[in-house]
């Protein structure tokens, strides 16, 4: 009897816990989308502050270019080695260039760039905005008649949406280059043949896919970074800033993975890209 009632209570507690948890998640999602739409509205509302945008573009570019290139290069090398070893038993090791090229352009280029930027830029956006929030700087902006979404979120959002595809071009070239270096130097593959294969398999449509993905990832990183920065409570203090920052990187990474799946489905399955 006693046992029964306690089991009943704890299951009630669990479902209550899940319910409040779900409500919390949904309300956060709602707030994040509200911020996203406010951002879209503010992008098209004058005055346009290009100086703020350029500052963010340079910041992101300088901070990430070398890391993106190095990450892309080594990923390409790994792909080259693995590809060659896996294809060799079937005597189709000649397709290794195609394998590297297609995976880097359509999948790994945008993905690696997005991962690097989620960790560096997304987290630093959250750290900066949440610090501004707890030190009342965002309130100060608002009291002085400046819209914080327009002043802080819009330039970061646009800069990520522009810089992600730009950096993806670099990481893609670095990836193909890495594959080339690994395959040509380690295995018996002709360099000229490799490059010819790459050229033959590099379609405009694939590049388009890559850029669409990269742009979407960029928007997601900025949206998550800004939302996590803004949503901290003023009473959070330094501890709140730390929690928000790690939270931002993790949520960005998961969002990118989910978004990648959704985009693959839409682009390849529904719209019929190759």
């Amino acid at each position, binding site marked *: 009897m006693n046992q029964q009632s306690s089991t009943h209570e704890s299951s009630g507690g669990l479902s209550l816990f899940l319910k409040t948890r779900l409500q919390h998640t949904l309300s956060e999602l709602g707030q994040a989308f509200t911020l996203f739409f406010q951002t879209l509205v503010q992008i098209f509302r004058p005055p346009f502050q290009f100086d703020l945008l350029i500052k963010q573009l340079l910041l992101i570019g300088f901070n990430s270019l070398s890391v993106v290139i190095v990450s892309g290069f080594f990923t390409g090398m790994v792909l080259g080695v693995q590809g060659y070893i896996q294809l060799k038993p079937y005597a189709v090791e000649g397709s290794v260039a195609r394998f590297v090229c297609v995976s880097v352009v359509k999948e790994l280029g945008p993905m690696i760039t997005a991962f690097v930027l989620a960790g560096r830029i997304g987290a630093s956006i959250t750290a900066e905005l949440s610090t*501004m929030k707890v030190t*009342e*700087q965002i*309130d*100060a902006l608002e*009291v*002085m*008649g*400046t*819209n914080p979404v327009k002043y802080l979120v819009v330039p970061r959002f646009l800069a990520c949406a522009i810089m992600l595809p730009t950096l993806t071009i670099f990481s893609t070239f670095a990836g193909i280059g890495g594959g080339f270096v690994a395959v040509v130097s380690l295995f018996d593959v002709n360099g000229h043949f490799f490059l010819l294969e790459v050229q033959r398999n590099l379609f405009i449509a694939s590049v388009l896919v890559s850029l669409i993905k990269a742009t979407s990832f960029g928007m997601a990183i900025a949206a998550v970074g800004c939302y996590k920065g803004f949503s901290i409570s003023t009473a959070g203090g330094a501890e709140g800033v730390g929690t928000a920052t790690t939270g931002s990187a993790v949520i960005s990474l998961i969002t990118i993975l989910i978004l990648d799946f959704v985009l693959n489905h839409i682009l390849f399955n529904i719209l019929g890209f190759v």
Partner: protein
Amino acid sequence: MISVKNVRKTFGDKQVLNGLNLEIPRGETLVIMGPSGCGKSVLLKIVTGLMAADSGEIWFDGTEISKLKAKKLNVIRRKIGMLFQSAALFDSMTVAENVAFMLDQHENLSPQETRKIVDEKLSLVDLDGIREMRPAELSGGMRKRVGLARALAFNPEVILYDEPTTGLDPITCTEINHLIRDLHEKLQVTSVVVTHDMQSAFSVATRIAMIHEGKQIASGSPAEILKIDDPILQQFILFGAPDQILNMENPILKEFIRREA
């Protein structure tokens, strides 16, 4: 000039403001006193439209602002200068850029004109030659002054001070109090000072309002406030600054008795 009418605000199940009424007449320096956590900062945030009240009205010069659209609210906000409790300087900018912020955002001035205004405002708060410094390099008192210079940049009609002296040493406190009085006299602005520092309260106020449990429990001139026979008020004043206020030799007390006469 500003009236707060029957404002209520709760956080969760915590009632912070509980039907607060407050009149802020033009040209006065109103000091709002109340213990820590009684909702003074929340009140200033509601008055500036940073936070929505659960119910009640805020009137600014005959306009009810709590339901205004962002655009109209921003027009009114430009008439208000606010000094935040933490100064809230933008750390990514220099002192000069901080002070010039509203001019850069809302006016089309030449760099020379902006520079002139910035220098003028910085000298109003007795800070010269720190234009290019960053907020992180400044002391607490200097940050408050820069915050004040920034609040003055747009020639506000009202200045709101959120605990201007909290966390500063006694000498710097006295300087800030002087500054508040000076600005009041020089610029004829309406000032609202929120504080729990009795010394500061009695040194700058032309009127005092006391908040307790989300309501105004007393208001009047400093001399009137001292005479009110209310245990909470007396305890607060006694607790706040026993010698300074009650000692008749106290220069502050002398000063406002002289002013009253």
